[in-house]
C-alpha cells in the first residue's frame, strides 16, 4: 500500500487539465490519461443506470476503443470534425469522495459548447470519474457521461469527446 498523497486540489487540477486537453484537441494525450483497463461510457439519455446488453448506449468504450475514438477524430477523414469544431469544456460543482482510498470518485457538472459553421450546440450533464494513482500520476479508470438533455436535438451527434 502506498501512502495517499492526492489532495482535492490535485483532483480539480487534473479535471481542468483534461478539459484543456480536450479543448485543444490533443486527443492522444487524452487517451493516455486512462489506465490500461480504462473505460469511457455515455449511457442512453434518461437512463444513466442502463445495462449495455439491454439498452443502446451512445458510447461504451474499453481502452482500445477510446483510443480508436481519439485517433479517428484527429484524422482529416473524420469528416464531421474536419476542420475541427471549437469547443469549450466547463466543469463545475466538483465533488470529490474517497480521497484516501484506492479509487477516488469524482462527480462534476459540465457545460460543453461546440461551434462549427456558425452553429452552436451546448451539451449539459454530469460526469462521474473513477480516478486512481499510478506511478505518481492520476489516471482515469472510468469516465461516465450522463447527458442532461431531452434528446440529441438539435445537436444531432456527439462528434467530440464529452
Amino acid at each position, binding site marked *: 500500500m502506498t501512502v495517499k498523497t492526492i489532495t482535492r486540489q490535485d483532483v480539480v487540477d487534473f479535471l481542468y487539465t483534461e478539459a484543456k486537453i480536450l479543448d485543444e484537441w490533443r486527443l492522444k494525450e487524452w487517451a493516455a490519461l486512462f489506465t490500461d483497463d480504462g473505460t469511457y461510457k455515455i449511457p442512453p439519455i434518461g437512463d444513466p443506470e442502463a445495462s449495455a446488453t439491454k439498452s443502446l448506449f451512445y458510447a*461504451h468504450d474499453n481502452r482500445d476503443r477510446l483510443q480508436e475514438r481519439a485517433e479517428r477524430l484527429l484524422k482529416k*477523414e473524420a469528416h*464531421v470534425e474536419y476542420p475541427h469544431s471549437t469547443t469549450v469544456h466547463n466543469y463545475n460543482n466538483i465533488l470529490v469522495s474517497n480521497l484516501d482510498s484506492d479509487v477516488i470518485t469524482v462527480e462534476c457538472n459540465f457545460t460543453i459548447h461546440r461551434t462549427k459553421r456558425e452553429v452552436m450546440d451546448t451539451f449539459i450533464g454530469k460526469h462521474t470519474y473513477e480516478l486512481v494513482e499510478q506511478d505518481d500520476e492520476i489516471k482515469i479508470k472510468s469516465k461516465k457521461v450522463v447527458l442532461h438533455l431531452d434528446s440529441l436535438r438539435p445537436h*444531432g451527434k456527439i462528434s467530440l469527446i464529452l
Partner: protein
Amino acid sequence: MNQFIRDNVEKSEFLVHRSVFTDREILARERAEIFNKCWLFLGHETEISELGDYRRKKVGGRNLLFVRSQDGEIRALFNTCPHRGALVCRENEGNSRVFRCFYHAWSFKNDGELVGMPGKDGFPEDFNNDGTKNMKAVNRVENYRGFVFVNFDENAISLDEYLGNAKEYIDLVVDQSEYGLEALGGIQEYSVRANWKLLAENSVDLYHGMPTHKTYFDIKQDQDPNLKRVQLEGEGVELDNGHGVIEYVAPWGRPVAQWTPIWDEELKNDMEEMKVKLAERFGEERADRIANYNRNIVIFPNLVINDIMAVTARTFYPTSPGYIEVSGYSLAPKGENEAHRMARNNNFLEFLGPAGFATPDDNEALELCQEAYNNNEEVEWNDISKGMVRGEGNALATDEVQMRNFWRQYNARIQASLNKEKEVAQK
C-alpha cells in the same frame, strides 16, 4: 410547369431538381400527399410488450400514444384531450391503465374511453354516448412481423399490399431470430440539419461507403487484416411503391453467424451452431443469405431498416425543409445470449448512432449538401444516374437504381397532386 425529376433512360441520365430540398411549399405538399397518405412506422411491438405499456411518439407531425390497451390491442391514440385539447400524457413512456389530463382532470382508459370527469352534473345525461369525447385513435394501425405502422388515410391500401415485395427483405431480417426481434431500450432521438429525402437516399447509398467512412474501415482493417479482401459486392433492387434495397456481402462481422477474429473463439462456436440451426430452418442458401449478407432497406417514405453490422431501424420526419427529427432503434434477437448481445451492441456503437464512428460523418455529408443548396438558383440539378448504363436489373449495390425508384414514386405522388390542382384551376 414544375418539373422535379428528369428521367432520361436513353441518355442514362437521372436528375432531381434541388428545389425539392429547400422549398416550403413543396414540404407542405409532401405533408399532404406523402406523410398523410403513406404507411408510416410507429414503433416495434416489443416496445410495449405488457398490457398498459405505452410510449409517446411523434409520427407524421402528430403526437401519438403507442399503447397496448388492457384488451391486448395495440393502438395509436392521438395524444390530445377531447375537452380542450391539452396533451393528455406527458411521460415519455410507462405503464398505466388510465391517462388523466391534468387541465380539468378528465380521465381515459388506455383504449381512449372517457371514464371520469369532475362535475359530471354539469353535463347532459347522455354525454359521450356517441363516443366523441373519447381520446381518438388512429383508425389504420397495422403490424408486419413486429413492425407497427400507422396510416392517416382511411382509404389507404393495406400495409401488406403497401409493403409488397419489400416483405421478402424484412423477412430476411426477422428470420435471423427463432423467437423474433426485440427493440432495445435507449431509442436514439437525434436530428440532422438537412432535408428528409437526403437521409432516405443516404441509407441505401453504398457508393459513399468508402470515401465517407474510411476511418471506420481503417479501424476494421487494423483489427482484421483479412477484411481487405472483401469488396462491397452485391446488387441494388427497386421494390414496389418506391421502396428499395441494396444487398451485399458483409465486409464486417455479423452478429448473426459471421464471426470475425476480434471476437472470442467461444463466440465462434456459438455462431457456427447458429448457422447450423438457420440451415435446418431455411436450407443452406437462405441461411447463408441471412447470415452473411447485408441489407439496407428503405420503406417509402421514411423508414430505413439496415441489417448490417447490427440491425437498426430509423424513422425521420421533417419539421422544416432543412431539419429532420430522427429516431434510431436497435433490434436484436429475443433471448440472445449475453456475450452475443455485447458483440452485437459493440458492433452497433462502433459504426452507428450519433456517437458512432460513421453515422456522424453521414450527417455531416447531408448537412453539407443542405448548406450548399443555397446555390440552387444557379446550380439546379442533382445527378442520380449511377448504373443506368448497365441497364434494367443489372445494378450493383453501389449503383443508384434504388434511389431512382424512390424518386419516381415521390414524383408520381407530387405530380398527381399538381395535376389535380391544375384541372381544378382550368374548370
